[in-house]
């Protein structure tokens, strides 16, 4: 018999909240420091369906921040998707976890069917491509990112969490993706060395990201509209609505054409093969 999570303490989320969460489907793209935190929280809140995607195996340098990973995993070289599945199932054995040891671009058919995508990826180009995909299939995308910068011989931690809602402002509208930034990233392509990453900023941003989802699927109040972009100042330990928010367009100026919706390679044969096979 399947063991059911007791969600009594979050019943304020609404009479139907348990059912809604149980029937909701989220994809986590990237299961490193941010994604592993989100997976754990989504398991606790009772999300029913997970699609976890990451092509990587754990390394010893991941252990400072990858939630659920153990020294034994490092020794075994466990896949990050396997660690995520183990964490989720250990909290909620009833959850369905579809895991893909792959890049998200290799599992787009599955990704099209989710209710929401969590983007926990490192590069601007990857988050930009993922957002384009999400817009094409009318999927809300929740993105988190953090960085450690060196300033005058000291270090500064910052980051952001944002909700990209189809029809609303996108990452380009918010200035998180720019042509200049993409060009600079392309110049650095292949440069050796990992970026600095630590567990607590990831945890803060992951919690904000899960909050975005909860406001979408089980809103506990309807009067307050949550900001779409929250900025994290790791030095001051604050999360605040971005100063850019009052200047954002109501509607996105970058994803406007209805031709950018749906399958660009649609064929009736593909439809027939799945419907009548």
């Amino acid at each position, binding site marked *: 018999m399947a063991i059911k999570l007791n969600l009594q303490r979050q019943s304020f989320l609404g009479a139907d909240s348990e059912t809604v969460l149980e029937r909701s489907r989220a994809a986590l793209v990237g299961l490193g420091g941010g994604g592993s935190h989100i997976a754990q929280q989504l398991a606790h809140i009772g999300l029913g369906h997970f699609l976890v995607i990451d092509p990587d195996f754990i390394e010893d340098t991941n252990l400072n921040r990858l939630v659920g990973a153990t020294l034994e995993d490092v020794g075994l070289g466990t896949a990050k998707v396997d660690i995520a599945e183990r964490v989720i199932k250990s909290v909620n054995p009833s959850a369905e976890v579809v895991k893909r040891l792959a890049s998200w671009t290799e599992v787009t058919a599955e990704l*099209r069917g989710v209710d929401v995508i969590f983007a926990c990826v490192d590069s601007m180009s990857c988050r930009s491509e993922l957002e384009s995909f999400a817009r094409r299939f009318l999927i809300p995308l929740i993105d988190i990112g953090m960085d450690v910068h060196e300033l005058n011989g000291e270090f500064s931690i910052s980051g952001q969490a944002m909700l990209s809602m189809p029809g609303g402002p996108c990452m380009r509208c918010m200035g998180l993706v720019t042509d200049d930034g993409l060009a600079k990233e392309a110049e650095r392509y292949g440069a050796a060395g990992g970026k600095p990453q630590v567990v607590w900023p990831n945890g803060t941003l992951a919690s904000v990201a899960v909050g975005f989802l909860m406001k979408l699927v089980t809103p506990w109040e309807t009067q307050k509209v*949550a900001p779409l972009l929250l900025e994290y100042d790791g030095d001051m330990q604050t999360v605040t609505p971005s100063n850019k928010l009052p200047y954002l367009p109501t509607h996105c100026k970058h994803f406007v054409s209805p031709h950018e919706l749906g399958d660009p390679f*649609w064929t009736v044969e593909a439809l027939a093969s799945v419907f009548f096979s």
Partner: protein
Amino acid sequence: MRTILKLTSALYDDLIRRLREPHDFAAERVAFLKCRPALSATSLLLLAGGVHHVEDGDYVDDPSAGATIGRSGLRKALQTAYTEAVSMVHVHLHEHRGRPGFSRTDLRENALFVPDFWNVQPSLPHGAVVFSFDSAVGQCWIPGSSSPSGVEVAIVGSPMRCTWKVPNGY
């Protein structure tokens, strides 16, 4: 395989507002969602990108139905499907809460006119959806199939509203 109609909450709000506007003689208004299809691993997705509204003059005064579209109105809808290469989903609103249902007239007329869109877009699915204030049901005609399959509806916004998550209304 499920069929899911997805539309943004902005498009939905505009659609419902227009459907509720009074007409000189028609008891209700109808429109068509212009959709582009996609397949996911488990579903056929109909992704709505706009609305083809039926103009006031294209309704026929027919007391036997809430709204009847004349030949000119149907021709314009067919033209939109052809020129914009879109799946057309006929929509109307039942002004109540809870799960709506197609009337016998709806079911009979859907079966007659929805497959007509294959005359102009034979490779695309087409359908019909009836909304209530907090739910929806629909039918979809898949190319190659003579009978319709059911349609579930997701309104993408904050909050997300999906007909399959809460049985009696989102």
